[in-house]
Structure formats: structure tokens, C-alpha cells
């Protein structure tokens, strides 16, 4: 029973206090768009952050060892392998 959480903006665009209580350890956290700039801020929600590779690349973002770069095919597969997705 895992949920896919999709973020497209840095953390200050969201009500952080609520998020930390609604993202569980088995959940997946995917950063797309400008959220890729804010990996450090989102690290609290998941040990491994999924990062849409193209979006990170155009923003000149270096990935860390515990980041997982994914393609659009992976993104699509993720929506199928999780039970529900939330675009925050």
C-alpha cells in the first residue's frame, strides 16, 4: 500500500507541517520541475528521492548517491506500481 507523492515546486510552496504527517516511510516521493532544485528540503520525507531526470538536467542539478533519476517511462510505471498518486 504505497502512495506516490509528486512535487513540482520548492517546499515553501506547500504547507510543510501537514506534509510530514501524511507521507509515510513506504511511500514514494517524486520531484519534478522546480522541486528538483530543493532536494535537500524534501530529503526529510524519504531516504531515496525520485527525480525526473530531464527536469533535473536542464536545471543543472547534480544528483547525490541516494537520489534516483527516472525517465518518463519510469514515472508512468510508478503511477501503476503505487496505489494512488497525489500531486501536491
Amino acid at each position, binding site marked *: 500500500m504505497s502512495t506516490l507523492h509528486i512535487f513540482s515546486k520548492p517546499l515553501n510552496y506547500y504547507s510543510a507541517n501537514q506534509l510530514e504527517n501524511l507521507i509515510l516511510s513506504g511511500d514514494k516521493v517524486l520531484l*519534478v*520541475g*522546480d522541486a528538483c532544485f530543493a532536494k535537500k528540503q524534501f530529503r526529510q520525507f524519504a531516504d531515496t528521492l525520485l527525480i525526473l531526470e530531464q527536469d533535473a538536467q536542464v536545471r543543472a542539478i547534480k544528483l547525490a548517491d541516494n537520489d534516483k533519476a527516472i525517465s*518518463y517511462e519510469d*514515472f*508512468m510505471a510508478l503511477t501503476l506500481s503505487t496505489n494512488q498518486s497525489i*500531486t501536491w
Partner: protein
Amino acid sequence: MARFVLSLHTPPSDHDTTQRIVKFANACLAQGHTIDAIFLYQQGIYHASTHFDLSSDELQISALWQQLADQKLNLMLCVTAAQKRGLDIKNTGVFKVAGLAEFAMLASDADKWVQFK
């Protein structure tokens, strides 16, 4: 093979979200999945305008949607959202004017609904 519906909530001036939903849709189609609808809701309805005037180095909004329409994708927009926002619902290009109920029925039958915003 899975059945998707996608909804778009941001206006056409959000080029980044626009390229993302289009690429996601193309990835679904390339993998042989079905997209029952792309649905424009909230500010997303402005994508159905036929009056874009973008310079050549900009994301070509209308051409992207045309390319999806050419693949027989069902492109819909919410009529009440459009009427309240001043979109000309008689000229919506490749997008079909639809009621929210139509989308809700498609979403209910789909395996996945992915929101883009």
C-alpha cells in the same frame, strides 16, 4: 495495459507543466497504454484558446496539443470552468467542450488519474 486519465490545472503560461504532461502522455502511448482523456480544468482551460502568439523559441503550445490530437487522443475541457473564465467555448481548437460528469465517468473507469500542476 492500463487506462489513464490526465488532468491539467495550470494555465498555458506555465510552460514547464505543459511540457511535462505532454511528455507523460507520449510515454503512456509509446508503452501501449490507453489515455481515455486529457481534461483541462481550473486555469488549465486556457490551453484551449486558439489565439496564442508565441515566438519561435517558445514552447509551441498549440502544436503540442495538435500532435496529441493527431494520435486520436481525447482532449476535453470543462465547460463551466471555461465559461466562468472567459474562454470562447465556440472556438476551442482540438479540445472538445465537455461537462464535468463526462470526465468523472471516464476517471471512474480509469486505472489511474494523474494530475498535472
